[in-house]
């Protein structure tokens, strides 16, 4: 029998509650949480998935330190020790040990995606191992968000969440900026101005808690800070900028950098031969899927009112749709 103190509650209130649980050899904290669910508190909420330290779902705080519950062995505690398990402090709590980690997805969505070189088609990308090696370290991330949770910039200063993207997104920024084929040139500015890399004071807690042992600070944040210095704090570069007005040039380049518009219906229609399709008929526009007050889809599975993502065609459209109602001619291949 071991003593556990587990935070129980939800957004309105909560408290640490004591439990006595049986523990067997070789178990991890997540096993004990499951035994508690099975024997004493069937309503204890905790998130988990793989039990192998690879999905990043079971992040909690154990004795005050952010950890994966499935990778924290019971053998690391003494027999008489009370083990405290609390939800991640930095994110809004949903219930018990489950928190809403949307913050991290919001920040991820603000990150410009990989942008391939314009002169290469997919399949033509060639990279050398030495060039991609640095980025590969960051691909080990399992998105457990322990680093985001421990970072004092947002953990102790809620207001910084607006300006600060957090260590997990800094490794993403470094991964893309070091990518040999990424064509974007404004990533350093993005990291400084939109991700707030300046808020990080390199105290390395993110590196300390990362279960994948990614050297977040040494290999991603400090290199990104140095790259920002290249662009922003180098007196010679700054002078060159002022003299040659390169800022404006870059802004124009950024403005021109738009994704190609999807092909308009007109360009498609003239290819199809006119059949019985009424090309002029009005198409019923389906209502857009439900979004939250921020105008976006709900980010986490707990907040959304159905399983899976909302339909991009609207919830009241059922398939198959009657083809008569569509401006669409199905190509026939059996005629010739």
């Amino acid at each position, binding site marked *: 029998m071991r003593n556990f103190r587990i935070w129980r*509650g939800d*957004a309105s*209130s*909560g*408290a640490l509650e004591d439990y006595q649980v049986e523990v067997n050899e070789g178990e991890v904290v997540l096993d004990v949480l499951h035994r508690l669910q099975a024997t004493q508190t069937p309503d204890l909420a905790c998130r988990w998935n793989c039990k192998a330290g690879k999905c990043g779902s079971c992040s909690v*705080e154990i*004795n*005050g*330190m*952010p950890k994966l519950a499935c990778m924290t062995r019971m053998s690391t505690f003494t027999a008489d020790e009370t083990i405290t398990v*609390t939800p991640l*402090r930095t994110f*809004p709590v949903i219930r018990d040990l489950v*928190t809403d980690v*949307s*913050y991290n997805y*919001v920040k991820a969505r603000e*990150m410009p995606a990989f942008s391939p070189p314009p002169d290469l088609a997919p399949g033509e990308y060639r990279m*050398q191992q*030495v*060039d991609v090696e640095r980025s590969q370290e960051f691909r080990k991330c399992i998105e457990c968000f322990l680093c985001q949770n*421990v970072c*004092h*910039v947002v953990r*102790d200063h*809620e207001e910084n*969440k*607006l*300006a600060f993207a957090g260590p997990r997104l800094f490794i993403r920024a470094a991964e893309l*900026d070091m*990518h040999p084929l990424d064509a974007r040139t*404004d990533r350093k*500015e993005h990291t*400084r*101005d*939109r991700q*707030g890399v*300046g*808020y990080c*004071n*390199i*105290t390395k*807690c993110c590196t300390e808690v990362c279960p994948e042992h990614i050297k977040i600070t*040494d290999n991603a944040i*400090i*290199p990104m*800070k*140095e*790259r920002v*210095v290249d*662009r*922003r704090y180098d007196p010679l570069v700054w002078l060159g900028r002022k003299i040659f007005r390169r800022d404006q040039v*870059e*802004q124009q380049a*950024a403005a021109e950098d738009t994704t190609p518009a999807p092909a308009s219906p007109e360009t498609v229609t003239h290819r199809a031969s006119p059949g019985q399709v009424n090309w002029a008929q009005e198409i019923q526009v389906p209502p857009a899927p439900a979004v*939250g*007050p*921020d*105008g*976006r889809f709900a980010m986490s599975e707990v907040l959304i009112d159905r399983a899976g993502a909302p339909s991009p065609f609207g919830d009241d459209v059922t398939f198959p749709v009657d083809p008569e109602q569509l401006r669409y001619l199905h190509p026939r291949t059996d005629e010739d």
Partner: protein
Amino acid sequence: MTTTGAESAPGPSKAQPAVTTRPRAAIAERTLRKDRWWLPPGIVAIGLAAWVTYATVRVFLKENYWVAEHHYLTPFYSPCVSLECIPEAAHFGRFVPDLPILPYAVISLPILLLFRLTCYYYRKAYYRSFWLSPPACAVPDGHARYTGETRFPLVLQNFHRYTFYLVVVITAINTWDMFLAFGGEAGFGIGLGNLVLLLNVIFLWLYTLSCHSCRHVTGGRLKHFSKHPIRYRWWTFVSRINPKHMQFAWISLGTLALVDAYVMAVSAGWITDLRFFN
């Protein structure tokens, strides 16, 4: 999301989702850590305070910095540029008037101080130990408001790279002093003092070259290592010693104090130099 730094002030876009409005778990304890988390920052605070005290006293003592017999010069007085310096100890000339507030090595010491002050490792050390921001992981920050290194004066930490360039020159001067010390008044000779000086110079170089800015300028800034094989080799070398930067930071502090104490002791006649050769 297309943006350049020039058009956007630091800060988020206006349309932010309401991630910041819903409450966190109500946990009364400020931290639930039960281990002795205060020990590492405490040790660092004591270590740094002790070293700074020693160095300050020594730098303003203005004596016992040169062993005439064996030509040992402590790095705290190198290069000795004050008009009051012992002429033999001034390897690079004497041209700065002596004022009580100025140390004899008035050019190198401020640069070295700035270098270590803006060093990524020391930043971590003093932000944790002295500024308590945060004192340890998952322990609350000691401050109500926090802007990190985005504002003056801390934004100046970004100039670390330029102090690195200057310190390479100073470390070369220390190396030069170390070589000169092999030739004392009686010609070539080797004593314990030479070995201590050599040890110090080795660790000064390891500390300086393992610098994160060094890692960046030698090769880290490149996008294509394959196009710059020589710089890639450099970067690989720096990357090998860079993870030990913290250790080198402390060891080099230790060897600096050791060399200085040794030179002071020999110079003051408290001990005699142990000679291996001549």
